[in-house]
């Protein structure tokens, strides 16, 4: 099977829509989470979120984020994406604003069906002139990893040369309500992954896409691969609708699944880009998982959600882009908001230069979904 490489990145986040700016701001430990007056006016209990500064229209917010990120990825690759580019998109809530409108005014059900996550794939296809096969992963907060891993597997099997894969999540008032009422949100509106004082997540929004190519295709056109896409490990807790398995055993199995498929051992992982939502339960379960996989010898671990908020279905795609940039620049972005580490892990508290060969992008989700996507330095 031929290697699959990353040749383009595009992302739109609360920290910006330029990949280099986003990475620099992550290294600077900037936090994009702010008060949102519209949420306060609407009566929400929690009013802080990480929303994109260049506010797209509310009605087509997700589609606009998707197209902007996809265009940026294509431009970054220097490749006019061929019509048969394989497209994989992940999302949690879809175009949430349509469902929010429908709660107040009747809308034809066909309009709502068109607002599912599939709408993002359709928008990208239309705007970028793609006519190839496409898939939409509704796998909640792990959807980005599913999309990228599946696209890479597709290419590695020789079924195509180029893929565009990522995740999209417009800000969702439904998610804000749901997480808030589930007591998953930070009461202070500050996300502190893996910190003793962590008290919940903060919602974000964004989109990210990666252009993937089989290595021979990238090299033949003179492109510079940024990274290698490795195996995607998957498992399911099969335990609880929303809470993670506390001992991290099934998430650990997903990690081992990825390592085994890639032919690696745990000591070859140089950084874990953690799921790290900042909730008491989820961070504890993830820490248990990391102890299971790595024993007492923790690799550097950091979560980006203290800076960006939790962007749900876009999160692991954004984090995959950051993994690629970390591999490229050989520096690990730190946890933002970490003051008192709650776990015996090597939690990164400032930018750390490092020799990064393989990194692991962890994403966990409602429904007990566990995913670990491996990404490697291109050499």
């Amino acid at each position, binding site marked *: 099977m031929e290697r699959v490489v990353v040749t383009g990145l595009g992302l739109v986040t609360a920290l910006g829509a330029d990949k280099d700016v986003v990475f620099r701001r992550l290294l600077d430990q900037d936090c994009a989470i702010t008060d949102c007056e519209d949420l306060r006016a609407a009566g929400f209990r929690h009013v802080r979120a990480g929303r994109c500064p260049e506010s797209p229209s509310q009605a087509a917010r997700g589609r606009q984020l998707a197209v902007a990120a996809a265009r940026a990825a294509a431009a970054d690759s220097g490749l006019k994406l061929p019509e048969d580019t394989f497209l994989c998109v992940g999302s949690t809530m879809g175009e949430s604003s349509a469902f929010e409108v429908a709660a107040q005014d009747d809308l034809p059900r066909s309009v709502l069906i068109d607002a599912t996550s599939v709408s993002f794939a359709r928008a990208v296809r239309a705007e970028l002139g793609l006519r190839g096969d496409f898939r939409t992963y*509704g796998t909640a907060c792990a959807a980005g990893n599913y999309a990228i891993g599946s696209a890479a597997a597709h290419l590695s099997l020789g079924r195509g040369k180029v893929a565009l894969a990522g995740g999209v999540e417009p800000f969702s008032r439904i998610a804000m309500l749901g997480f808030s009422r589930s007591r998953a949100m930070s009461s202070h509106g500050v996300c502190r992954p893996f910190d003793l004082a962590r008290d919940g997540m903060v919602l974000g929004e964004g989109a990210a896409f990666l252009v993937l190519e089989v290595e021979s295709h990238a090299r033949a056109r003179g492109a510079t691969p940024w990274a290698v896409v490795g195996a995607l490990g998957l498992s399911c807790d099969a335990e*609880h*609708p929303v809470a993670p398995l506390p001992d991290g055993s099934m998430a650990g199995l997903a990690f081992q699944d990825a390592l085994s498929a890639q032919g690696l051992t745990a000591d070859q992982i140089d950084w874990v880009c953690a799921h790290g939502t900042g909730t008491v339960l989820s961070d504890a379960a993830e820490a248990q998982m990391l102890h299971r996989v790595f024993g007492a010898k923790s690799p550097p671990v950091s979560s980006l959600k203290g800076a960006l908020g939790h962007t749900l279905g876009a999160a692991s795609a954004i984090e995959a882009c950051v993994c690629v940039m970390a591999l490229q620049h050989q520096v690990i972005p730190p946890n933002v908001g970490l003051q008192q580490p709650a776990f015996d892990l090597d939690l990164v508290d400032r930018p750390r230069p490092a020799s990064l060969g393989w990194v692991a992008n962890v994403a966990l989700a409602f429904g007990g979904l566990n995913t670990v996507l491996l990404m490697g330095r291109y050499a």
Partner: protein
Amino acid sequence: MTGSTAGTVCATLPALSQLVCAQTCDWFDGDIATHERGLYLATADAGVDDAVAFYERGLRETLRFASPADFHWTLSNAPAGQISRELHIQGPCYTLVGRGQAVRAVVDHALFDLARGRVKRALLVACELQAQPQAAFVALYDGRIDVSAIEAHLRQVFPMPSDC
């Protein structure tokens, strides 16, 4: 149309998921380890009506006091979550959103995982609620056979019980 029927629709996804489990619980009997079981689900609309109903209730009861109990049903992977719990499926668990593309994709993912030995048994589910709850249906495919003969092994299309 949405609105007054949304509350009724919200009961459909759990019922549909239970129907799948009832029809397939024997498929995973025996010595198949739970992590070698895979679930591959395609849906055009799981979560759609629930998202509307959940937010509608939130607005009606004020946003600060809405019940969180139904929130996870607003996500398209909620049916797969329930099925995985009922049938102890701890291997790969996919939910693909859409119609034809999604169905083809779940077959593709299942075949890939079976071929590489990642799973020993795969449960493929396609569910669509449509506009009327009683018209919801689920198609089941038993993945424990020769993967070259899918159509011959498509078990059945089950109509939803009329009281759902």
